[in-house]
C-alpha cells in the first residue's frame, strides 16, 4: 500500500495502468479521472507528510499494490443494506458516502444491522467540502467504473487479495472516557439529535443541561463497545428548541461518558501512533483538525484525508481510522 500526493495527470496514468486506488480531493480534480478500479471522494483537507493542509490542486492517492483485483460499485440508498453482496472472499471493501446525504444518515443509524456487514474489513469515510462551502456545494463521491460523481448513495471498492493476506482495520481514538463513573449519559432514543438524556440516572433536557453545566462541546461523548472507544461528537446545542444535534447518532441504551480534556492533539496522535502509520491507510476527522489545530502539524506517521466522518464498519467521529495489509506468508 502506498500513499502519495499526485497531480491529476499522474493519478490518471496510474489508473490507466490498472492500479487499484482510492483517491481524495477537490471535485474538479476527481471529475477529470479516467475510468478504472478506483473510487474517490471530495475533501480539501489533508494530513500529508508535511502536516495538516488545505489542498485543492492535487489528489491524495492510496494505491493497493497488494490487490489482485477490484470492483468499483455504486449503491443507492435502497441498496445500502446489500453492501456485503459485493464482498470478495478474503478481501476488503472501501466505502465513501457524501456528508449530509440520506445515505449518510441511514448508514449511521442502520449500518450495524446490514446483513454480513462485518464479514470483511469495511473502511472509508464521509466526504466533505471546504467549511466555507457548506450549504453551497454538495460533498461528492466518485465511482471509477463510470467516473461519475454522486451526492447521494455510497461508492464501494471491493478489493481482492492474494490468499493468506491479512487486513488489520482498527481505530486510534485519542480521547479517553471521563474518569467519573458517576457522570454518565444515556439516551432513550437513537438518532442524530436528542432532547432528553438520562444523566446520572436522572432525566434532563440535554440542551439545558449542557448550557447550565458549561460542558465543553468540543469533547465527544465516548461509549465503550466491549473495549473499543466510540465517540459521538456534539454538533450544536439549541436551548430554545431544547435540542442537541450530533455528528453521529447516539444509540439507545448505550452508556456514554464525556471525554477527558486533551492538551495537544498532535502530540496525542503521535503518542498513540508510536512508530506505526507509514504505509497504512488512514483518515482523520475534521473536528480533530479544527479543535486540535492540526494545520501544519503531523499526526505521527499517519497521512490521509481529513473527513466529515470516518468508517470502520460503522460511522465514527473524532477518530483516526487506520488499515494495514500484511502480505501472504
Amino acid at each position, binding site marked *: 500500500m502506498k500513499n502519495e500526493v499526485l497531480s491529476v495527470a499522474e493519478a490518471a496514468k496510474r489508473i490507466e495502468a490498472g492500479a487499484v486506488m482510492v483517491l481524495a480531493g477537490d471535485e474538479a480534480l476527481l471529475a477529470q479521472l479516467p475510468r478504472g478500479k478506483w473510487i474517490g471522494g471530495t475533501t480539501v483537507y489533508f494530513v500529508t507528510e508535511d502536516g495538516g493542509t488545505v489542498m485543492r490542486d492535487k489528489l491524495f492517492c492510496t494505491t493497493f499494490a497488494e490487490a489482485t483485483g477490484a470492483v468499483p460499485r455504486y449503491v443507492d440508498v435502497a441498496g445500502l443494506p446489500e453492501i456485503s453482496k459485493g464482498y470478495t472472499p478474503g478481501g476488503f471493501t472501501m466505502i465513501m458516502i457524501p456528508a449530509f446525504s440520506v445515505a449518510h444518515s441511514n448508514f449511521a443509524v442502520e449500518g450495524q444491522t446490514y446483513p*454480513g456487514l*462485518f*464479514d470483511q*474489513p469495511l473502511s472509508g469515510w464521509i466526504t466533505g467540502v471546504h467549511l466555507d462551502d457548506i450549504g453551497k456545494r454538495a460533498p461528492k463521491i466518485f465511482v471509477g467504473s463510470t467516473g461519475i460523481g454522486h451526492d447521494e448513495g455510497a461508492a464501494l471498492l471491493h478489493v481482492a487479495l492474494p490468499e493468506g493476506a*491479512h487486513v488489520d482495520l482498527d*481505530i486510534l481514538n485519542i480521547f479517553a472516557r471521563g474518569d467519573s463513573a458517576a457522570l454518565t449519559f444515556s439516551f432513550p432514543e437513537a438518532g442524530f439529535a436528542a432532547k432528553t438524556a438520562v444523566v446520572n440516572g436522572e432525566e434532563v433536557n440535554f440542551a439545558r443541561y449542557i448550557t447550565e453545566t458549561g460542558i465543553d462541546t468540543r469533547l465527544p461523548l465516548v461509549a465503550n*463497545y*466491549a*473495549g473499543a472507544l466510540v465517540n459521538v461528537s456534539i454538533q450544536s446545542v439549541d436551548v430554545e428548541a431544547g435540542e442537541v444535534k450530533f455528528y453521529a447518532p447516539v444509540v439507545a441504551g448505550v452508556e456514554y461518558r464525556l471525554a477527558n480534556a486533551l492538551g495537544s492533539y498532535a502530540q496525542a496522535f503521535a503518542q498513540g501512533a508510536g512508530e506505526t502509520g507509514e504505509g497504512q491507510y488512514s483518515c482523520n476527522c475534521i473536528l480533530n483538525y479544527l479543535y486540535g489545530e492540526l494545520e501544519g502539524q503531523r499526526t505521527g506517521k499517519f497521512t490521509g484525508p481529513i473527513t466529515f466522518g470516518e468508517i470502520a464498519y*460503522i460511522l465514527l467521529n473524532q477518530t483516526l481510522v487506520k488499515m494495514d495489509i500484511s502480505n501472504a506468508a
Partner: protein
Amino acid sequence: MIPDANDPRWKRVLTSDSDLSATSLATRILIARLRREVAAAPGALAGKIGELRDFVTKNSFAVADVAKF
C-alpha cells in the same frame, strides 16, 4: 476449531460486560450490539449466539478472538 453453539463461552460473552480489547475491532463492535440486543430481549439469546457464531465461521481473523471470550 469453532466451538458449537452450546459452548458456554458464547452465552458468557453476550451476557457479561467483559472487556474484549484484545480482540479485533469487528468482533468488539458486533458483540457490543449483540449484548445490547440480548439485554433488551433475553429470549433472543439463542439467535444472537447463532449470529455471532456465523460471523466467526465466516472470518478467519475472528476465530482467534473466541479464545478471549
